[in-house]
């Protein structure tokens, strides 16, 4: 077991994977000499050279397109998109090319690439640098989607992503980079595509992913003070989605809230809530409640920004109301 931050775990995962597999290379804006806008790739250019850690021009569409072409040519590129907010420029290369190439070409080739990016609020970065856009990805068949909440998952799921046959969109949360936890790098692999029950309770199930897992855990602590016991599920992987773990807990407990930072309407929470409502219908004592980002852009004002996404207090309030 070692102590490290989420940022360090990501770097370690890249380092270990690149050491093992020389088809892996990194490309993206400022990933090399600068070390990444959030410092994840720091030093890798010294370890692996400029050919395997490639600083690119500010050309998001071509970065993803180049990764697609490289992946079809025997490489395993890791493309970094500095902010998930820039995904709009890449959605054709991502949604029409990376996601569909295996299918359109009848299975002749895969596109084994990882798109690393980060999203979320917390830095007063405004409407174009604070979004949580995972729902676009989840709605695009062909793209895997992973969003780690813990340091261990940052490491192990990135390693796993780098072994997949298909394009994986790997979204980090900008608020988690400094999170420090114990992690066992040599642990048995975190299984691919599986949710995890982070804590088990009997009164309510909180389904979350990425930073909201920590908010859900904090809310669960608070609720515990008044005797309310919550299950917290960390979904981790939105595609593949491990619905079974969710279903088991929901059917046992009968009350559930799904939590996501992205805007509510047509978001990931909608999918999870729809699916739970559909599949666990007879087990639900109450409606599945969505706790989500407001259906608005993010303001630069810190107060407005914080107020527009779920936080522990809101989760606690919602659960209390739900159990009333």
């Amino acid at each position, binding site marked *: 077991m070692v102590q490290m931050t989420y940022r360090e775990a990501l770097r370690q995962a890249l380092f270990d994977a690149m050491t093992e597999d020389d088809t892996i*290379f990194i*490309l993206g804006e400022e990933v090399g000499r600068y070390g990444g806008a959030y410092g994840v790739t720091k030093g890798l250019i010294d370890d692996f050279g400029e*050919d*395997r850690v*490639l600083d*690119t*021009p500010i*050309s998001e*569409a*071509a970065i*993803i*397109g*180049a*990764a*697609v*072409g*490289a*992946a*079809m*040519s*025997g*490489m395993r*590129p890791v493309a970094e998109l500095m902010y998930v907010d820039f995904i709009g420029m890449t959605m*054709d*290369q991502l949604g*029409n*090319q990376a996601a569909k*190439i*295996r*299918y*359109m*070409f*009848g*299975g*002749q*080739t*895969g596109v084994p690439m990882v798109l690393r990016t980060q999203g979320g609020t917390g830095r007063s970065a405004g409407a174009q640098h604070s979004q949580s856009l995972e729902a676009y990805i989840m709605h695009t*068949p*062909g793209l*895997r989607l992973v969003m780690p909440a813990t340091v261990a998952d940052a490491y192990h799921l990135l390693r796993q992503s780098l072994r*997949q*046959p*298909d394009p994986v969109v790997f979204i980090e949360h900008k608020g988690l980079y400094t999170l420090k936890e114990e992690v066992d790098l040599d642990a048995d692999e975190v299984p691919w595509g599986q949710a995890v029950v982070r804590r088990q309770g009997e009164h309510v199930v909180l389904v979350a992913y990425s930073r909201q897992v920590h908010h859900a855990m904090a809310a669960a602590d608070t609720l515990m003070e008044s005797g309310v016991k919550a299950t917290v599920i960390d979904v981790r992987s939105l595609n*593949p989605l491990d619905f079974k773990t969710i279903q088991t807990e929901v059917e046992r407990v009968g009350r559930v809230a799904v939590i996501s930072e992205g805007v509510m309407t047509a978001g990931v929470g909608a999918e999870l809530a729809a699916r739970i409502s*559909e*599949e666990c*219908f*007879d087990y639900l004592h109450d409606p599945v409640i969505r706790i989500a980002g407001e259906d608005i852009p993010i303001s630069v004002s810190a107060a407005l920004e914080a107020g527009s996404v779920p936080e522990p207090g809101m989760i606690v309030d919602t659960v209390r109301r739900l159990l009333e």
Partner: protein
Amino acid sequence: MAELTIPPNTNANLDLEALYRMMRRIRSFEERVGELFVRGQSAGSMLHLSIGEESAAAGVGSVMEDGDSFTTHHRGHGIFLARGANPDRMMAEIAGKQSGYCSGKGGSMHIADMSLGHLGANAIVGGGIPAVVGAGLASKLKKSGSVSVAFFGDGAMQQGILYESMNMAALWDLPVLFVCINNQYGMGTRIDRATKTTDLHVRAEAFGLQGRSVDGLDVTDVHSAAADLMDDARAGKPGFLAVSCYRFYGHARKDKSPYRTDEEEEAGRKRDSVAYTREQLANSTVGADALDILDRSIDEEMDASIDFAINSGAPELTSMFNDVYGPSEPPPESVRTRIERVLARS
């Protein structure tokens, strides 16, 4: 061909007959794609024929080597044939059949063959261009010596991603060649209504690539320009080649091109690189008789591709769930199965 004076070909190093054969096969194949459509056997009507553009496909295709890769646009049948495609499997794919290159999932606009380096046709204008940057990077990293070529139309000259891609190729000295097949039109829009400057290679030069524009009438001109650029690309000096030609027919099968005059079309179709080369060969030691025989054998081969396509079976309905993810991944659950499962429980 009355108005054109066709000089005899004097380049001894060039296998003009092979180039003719390539072009003639493309022409013959494309005519049969049209026929497949008329017979109601094609998958849809989004069939874009490359008739009139044969010299670009053959001129560039002939200087590529085994191991080189390429992407094409939606009008890519000819290029793929020039790189060795099997016409049966192409035609079957265009008909949406299981025996096609992509098992009926791709169709005319999404044909690919990894074994021939065809990284895929693309129905998105400009969509296939950046992949060659990635292929070029792979070549450089693996020191494989291969070149990757992006083929696209003049319409894609107005897509931003081309410039992002050319910039990267130049910046990183990649073994990449960009080939613009300038058939003067993007759908109903003549190039001068899409851009102010039609001297296309200048744009590539402005990004640090080697640029050439060439008239596609004489395939030997295309061939020699492409050969030079290809040599340089292989040495890490990426290039751009614009081949000007004329789109003989409508944009897709249903388009009758009402936006252009008969005179223009007539003049455009006179600039026929297939006929031009045929004339050269007919007047050479090859002679007209041999060409007649060659043509007939090509037509028979291509006729057979129609039969092959028509006689092939449609893909199984359940095959639609395959190939969304890798072969050892579970396929997505079908909506029907899900509904049954959910309702069986509640």
